[in-house]
């Protein structure tokens, strides 16, 4: 699958009302691989911090003896970050307002992760 097709799929996620951006990141180095986002979203920073979060989550799961995380959901007062594991080391990440349909976003990310693999 080409980067252009990845970006098309990410645009589909971004079309969900309330989603600020969707990106594929490399969790190993915290960099953006592909993205579709509103201008105000600092995607490079999102990638860096998401990767750090995923790294910590992985260590936490490992310490509990529960394998590797398949997704990480961070829900705050005014928004949420959803991350779904793709083929290593890629992760799909979406950032959304609090009123976005997070369930739909999660499903789209999971479907996309399957296609990516």
């Amino acid at each position, binding site marked *: 699958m080409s980067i252009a097709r990845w970006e098309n799929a990410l645009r589909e996620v971004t079309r969900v009302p309330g989603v600020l951006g969707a990106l594929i990141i490399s969790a*190993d180095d*915290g960099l953006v691989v592909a993205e579709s986002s509103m201008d105000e979203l600092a995607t*490079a920073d999102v*990638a860096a911090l998401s990767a*750090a979060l995923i790294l910590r989550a992985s260590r936490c799961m490992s310490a509990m003896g529960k394998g590797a995380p398949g997704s990480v959901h961070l829900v705050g007062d005014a928004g949420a970050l959803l991350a779904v594991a793709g083929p290593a080391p890629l992760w799909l990440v979406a950032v959304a307002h609090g009123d976005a349909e997070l369930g739909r976003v999660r499903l789209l990310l999971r479907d996309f992760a399957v296609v990516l693999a």
Partner: protein
Amino acid sequence: MRVLEPWVTAPLTEFLRESSARLALVMTSSGQVIAQHGFTRSVDVMSAAALGAGILATTTEIATMVDAPAGFGAVVHQGAAQGIWLAGFDTPRGRWIGLVVFGPESTVGLVRMFFARFAEQVAAATPAVVPVRDVLAEGFERELDDSLRALFGSR
């Protein structure tokens, strides 16, 4: 951590905490050390500073060759166990360079992000240049003579 310019201390401390970097070196574009963290021998600091400044100078030459006059923002080398981030940034006292070594507890993305913040904070905190006329008291020559005589014994 050793810091020559005191206003670098707070931004560098925050950078190290946030990025989990193992080693950090801040230098002028000609390799004079401003601050360092994690190095244990001064000769390593000087070597790293000279080599880092040389690498960035070389990449600037490459940028000119490949018609990229704005140059490259940073040089990154990702090894199996450690990575290196090398980037220049502008301050009121000229262009400075940061050399950062990070391990698997960090990522190049985190280093990039917090380095950008560090560069902004240093630029904002840097005071104006000291007027050179105020640097040395007049009549320093006799002290210089005495100092060199003491340094070189009874030459």
